[in-house]
């Protein structure tokens, strides 16, 4: 399938037009959307209008960038001014944001054409997109299987050819895991690399906007656009963005990578493990040095995550109370208004996490849970930083298994949580990480994950480009 940079090239040469790209996208949507349910909101009219405007700009020699006229989609927890944004929850009703997320605004400033808002697990809480209040998305490779989540709709849209690129968001693997399941490239930048302003918060200290693209270079180009400081987000790093595209073009030759054994242990399917070992061998053959490192605290990451993330979520989601926006339930008194509005508005998984988070923050439990989890988080981060003194990147599987079937894990929250065990550590430590497709196993995509030190997206992209080149063959 055509990448974003290839489409840009054809646009530049006058071989196609934005209208043609958008119409082709809409045709794909018409063919497959009913089955796959990638979108919560589609914007065919405004997309065509924007495409026409883009074509006029280009004809006048005023194309804004390589992104000008390229169709894209945004996960529906990213605010888009005047365009319904739901976070796949009933509690927001038909919420129309009065402003756009910083990342969305930066892409719009490049002239890209927003095709629609994509499906997700409610408030990005889930790993399969089955927890969307508006019904699940399906994996385009095998529609009996989940696309992963929570950025499932974005991964589906990119994988199924409905748009050239998409934004997703991560808290514990929500971009990389669906990228792995759907066979596309997913990037979670370093914490703070992209402004979170306008991203509906799940867990503030873990959330990060990420990219879903058809190849590594597209991801590099896209991150270059959205990365960088933002006065609206104090946690956004003011370090200037690197030239990620140049890094991807350079490749990983001469760099060092490690394969931590903790990421290949129990729970990781043998064929996934084999694929990682195969990829490691290929990297070595293509000029990289392998030096294995151990990350012994890895097994505790999931525990720490399921304390910190729900704790922050319980507070972040308190604002959804039916008082200022979203539907308000009829009630006799204030307490009932809260109970009913929130009781009716949130789905079961969101409630589970709010309860969990409320519990771990309560008086008497804070030290035992939250503080302890934060200590673990510090240990994990230190352990990673230590490892990155020896290696430039770490190579691991993105997920323990390939895409599971719809309904397989919905009755067992713990099994669902396990889908994120290999991606969560990067969120806890704030590392940049990428999932690159390996060679499919049993006809299903497999994701190979690379992690690098904070703000070393350049190293990540260099190795990812090589990995992509050699591994998928």
């Amino acid at each position, binding site marked *: 399938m055509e990448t974003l940079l290839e489409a840009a090239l054809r646009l530049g040469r006058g071989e196609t037009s934005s209208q043609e790209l958008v119409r082709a996208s809409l045709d794909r949507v018409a063919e497959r959307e009913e089955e796959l349910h990638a979108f919560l909101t589609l914007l065919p009219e405004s997309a065509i209008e924007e495409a026409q405007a883009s074509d006029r700009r280009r004809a006048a020699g005023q194309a804004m960038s390589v992104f000008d006229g390229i169709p894209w989609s945004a996960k529906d927890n990213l605010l888009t001014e005047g365009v319904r*944004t739901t*976070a796949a929850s009933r509690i927001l009703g038909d919420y129309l944001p009065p402003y756009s997320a910083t990342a969305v605004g930066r892409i719009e400033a490049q002239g890209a054409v927003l095709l629609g808002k994509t499906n997700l697990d409610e408030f990005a809480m889930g790993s399969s997109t089955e927890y969307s209040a508006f019904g699940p998305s399906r994996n385009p490779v095998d529609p009996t299987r989940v696309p992963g989540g929570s950025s499932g709709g974005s991964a589906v849209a990119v994988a199924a050819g409905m748009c050239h690129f998409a934004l997703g968001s991560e808290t514990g693997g929500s971009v990389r895991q669906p990228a792995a399941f759907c066979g596309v490239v997913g990037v979670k930048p370093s914490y703070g690399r992209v402004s979170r302003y306008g991203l*509906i918060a799940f867990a503030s200290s873990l959330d990060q906007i990420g990219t879903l693209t058809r190849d590594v270079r597209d991801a590099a180009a896209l991150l270059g656009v959205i990365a960088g400081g933002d006065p609206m987000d104090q946690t956004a790093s003011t370090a200037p963005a690197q030239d990620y595209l140049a890094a991807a073009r350079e490749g990983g030759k001469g760099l060092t990578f490690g394969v931590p054994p903790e990421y290949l242990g129990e729970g990781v399917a043998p064929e996934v493990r084999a694929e990682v070992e195969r990829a490691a061998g290929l990297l070595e053959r293509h000029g990289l040095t392998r030096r294995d490192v151990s990350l012994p605290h890895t097994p505790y990451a999931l525990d720490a995550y399921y304390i910190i993330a729900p704790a922050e979520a*319980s507070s972040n989601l*308190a*604002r959804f109370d039916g008082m200022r926006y979203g539907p308000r339930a009829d009630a006799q008194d204030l307490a009932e208004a809260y109970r009913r509005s929130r009781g009716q508005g949130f789905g079961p998984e969101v409630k589970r996490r709010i309860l969990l988070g409320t519990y771990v*923050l*309560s008086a008497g439990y804070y030290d035992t849970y939250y503080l302890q989890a934060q200590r673990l988080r510090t240990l994990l981060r230190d352990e990673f930083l230590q490892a990155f003194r020896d290696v430039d990147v770490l190579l691991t599987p993105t997920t323990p298994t390939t895409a599971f079937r719809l309904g397989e894990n919905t009755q067992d929250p713990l099994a669902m949580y396990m889908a994120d065990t290999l991606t969560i550590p990067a969120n806890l430590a704030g590392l940049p990480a990428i999932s690159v497709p390996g060679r499919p196993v049993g006809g299903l995509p497999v994701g190979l994950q690379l992690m690098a030190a904070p703000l070393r997206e350049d190293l990540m992209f260099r190795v990812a480009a090589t990995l992509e080149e050699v591994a998928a063959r």
Partner: protein
Amino acid sequence: MSGFETVIGLEVHIELQTESKMFCSCPNRFGDPANTNICPVCLGLPGALPRPNAAGIDAAIRMALALGCQVAKRSKFDRKNYFYPDLPKGYQISQLDEPIGADGRVEVPGGGTVRVLRVQLEEDAGKLQHESHGAVVDFNRAGVPLLEIVSAPDLRSPQEARAYWEEIRRIALALGISDARMEEGSVRADANISLRPVGAEELNPRVEIKNMNSFRFLERALAYEAERQAEVYRQGGRVDQETRGWDDPRGVTFSQRSKEEAEDYRYFPEPDLLPFAIDPSHVAELRQSLPELPGDRRQRLARLGLAEEQVRLIAESSARTAYFDGAMAAGADVDSVAKWICGDLARYENDGRFDFAHPAFPAAELGALVQSVAQGELTGPAAKKVLSLLAERGGTVADAVRQLGLGRIDDLDAVRAEVRAVLSLEQKAVADLRAGKKQAMGFLVGQVMRRTRGRVAPDVASRLIVEEVGE
């Protein structure tokens, strides 16, 4: 309350007078139409993030310094979680364990030394208003920076609690960090009160009275509550830890929430804001910039020999003290300046005819007026008239004197003519004076003053009357 000692601690909240709110750039302004100074951040819209206002942090540091606190080298914000319709995010950004200032003290005028446990920075909530059709919220106040100043339980009477609160307010005013308008709710206090047998060390369960917005309410509520608790103990009962409200019209406190119903605020570090370092050199600069504080003002004025009441009155506000200093700088004497300020000018201020902060005429003119009197150029009564005109229209003493035609009549013959005219009209008083009635002299001098509209020095008038009557 014999046999019991009253133990009170106060949490004083002061809204800071910054240009913009604490975590967004909305104007921090009282009195605008409801919900006009709002944005996604202070409304708690999805996706919005706070960003700290450095001016708010500086104001907190200055308050901490003024209260003799240790200023933290590193500080951070925390979330205090609870649901209420005036709280847009479902949590308040506050400070839990790393407040900006800690371990300070305040000398309470007419009271003891009170320890200040902490000075912390937080955001105010919106304003809930109950109307006939239900409740509405004005979010203009949401996100306004708020200082919380927590005292140790060192206050021993409702009067001392009030004096402490007033002193905190004066300090905030002196620093210029707040307009501290009671009637606008920009200063509020929660009080904790318990009783214990005189001599006991341990504290008994305390009652919290929340959200007091007037000094008088506080004093009354605490006095009532102390008496109520004393009565409970006298009856052999137990005082439960609880939150009580103050019903001013009825003059009673009433139970609002028991300890068991108390909220669990589930504090945790605010992940949207970075912990911040406070540079000691910046703190040193802010310390340098501190103005003279009310306590120092009082000491300095007392050293000048002013009466206690004069000290209290002049030191009450920076503006009065500055005016006093301005008049002194013009070379006037202490006693006279103090008398004018505490007398006529204070009265004018009460009547709304004069404002020390924005005086109609500069302090130097008060100095000039005092000197004119001292040098006999103006009589006391004439000076009062001059002052009144200055307060009304501004300008200089010289202009006012000219305008009022109040220049002293220096020509002795002219004065003598006026005296003779009075004496010829007041035969009875003259006779009384001759008969040795001293009061008659006062009357006659008064008549001369009246005739000349105060332009004659009383001692001169008196001397000439003696001469004329004697002849």
